[in-house]
């Protein structure tokens, strides 16, 4: 999430509202998103397509692993 510049695209356009901007700062002084509802993530990768900073992406993982392993950090 060091690349994130907190544009909020991923948060806004995640169809299932998996993400929210965190209040913590990354090293560049931005608030990157964090996963607030991992169970809702469909792995659609829309967040990944929207992200202008190549800082996030979604994958279709086996249902069991869904709540983890999806968002690069």
């Amino acid at each position, binding site marked *: 999430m*060091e*690349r994130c*510049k*907190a*544009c*909020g*695209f991923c948060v*806004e*356009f995640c169809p299932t509202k998996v993400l929210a901007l965190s209040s913590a700062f990354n090293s*560049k002084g*931005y608030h990157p998103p964090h996963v607030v509802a991992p169970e809702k993530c469909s792995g659609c*990768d*829309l967040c*990944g*397509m*929207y*992200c*202008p*900073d*190549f800082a*996030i*992406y979604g*994958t279709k993982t086996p249902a069991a692993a869904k709540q*983890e*392993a*999806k*968002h*690069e*950090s």
Partner: protein
Amino acid sequence: MSELVNPVESFLRTDRMPHIWCPGCGIGTTVNCFARALIDSGIDLESLALVSGIGCTGRVAGYVKLDSFHTTHGRAIPFATGLKLANPKLNVVVYSGDGDLSAIGGNHLIHAARRNIDLKVICVNNLIYAMTGGQTAPTTPGHAITATSPYGAFEPSFNLPHLLEAAGAVYVARWTTFHVRQLARSIGEAFQKKGFSFIEVISPCPTLYQRRNQLGDGLDTMKYYKEASKVRNGSPTSEAGLTMTGEIVVGKFVDRERPDYQTMMTAQMTESLGERYIRPEMEHEEEGCGVCG
């Protein structure tokens, strides 16, 4: 989670990250869609060359891990033309900004479309000259405030899909950075076509266009795109003009068949010269290279 890597990572020169684009800039989003279109289309990345002009968008060439050429302002298309004609096996993508392609590069744009050179042109239209600090572009909507239109722009702006259709492009589409899936699909479709394809992507430049015009930040702009866009595939391009805050007609407007430049060249030469004609690509098929020895 360390074993997982962002799928676009392999398309990027990660040693050049972070990129220079501002927070909320749409250019990165378009690159993301482009990368995903490449993955989906399964195209051979070694045969793919990307050519940019100068501008914020022009920097795309510096970030993609492809044979990538950062040319001069406005001249990405003729450079790409040379590349393609010298090695017809290449897939050549031109990736540049609205000012680069339609202001200083406007002549090359219409002539390459006329000739139907087999190029895929991705035009990131942020309605402004961003790199140089936010001056009026031929795409800037009326009344917008820019660095060179301090009292509001008043020149009519180009309706690029309309111009490109009239000039001869075989594939013309417009999307916004909100339309990530459609954009990726369009890029994929363009790769299926042989001929001049033009995809316009309306994209936020919060730093120099939106803020100066009190249109908010990148996210506000994305929301506006979402609201104001009307998907009208096949719409007459003459009805696709843009205004500062009005409707944005998006969609695939033109998808037609015309033989591309090299096909026509081969046909005409063969008609006139018959067997005496030696196609340039035959050179490449030969053993040993006449250039490198």
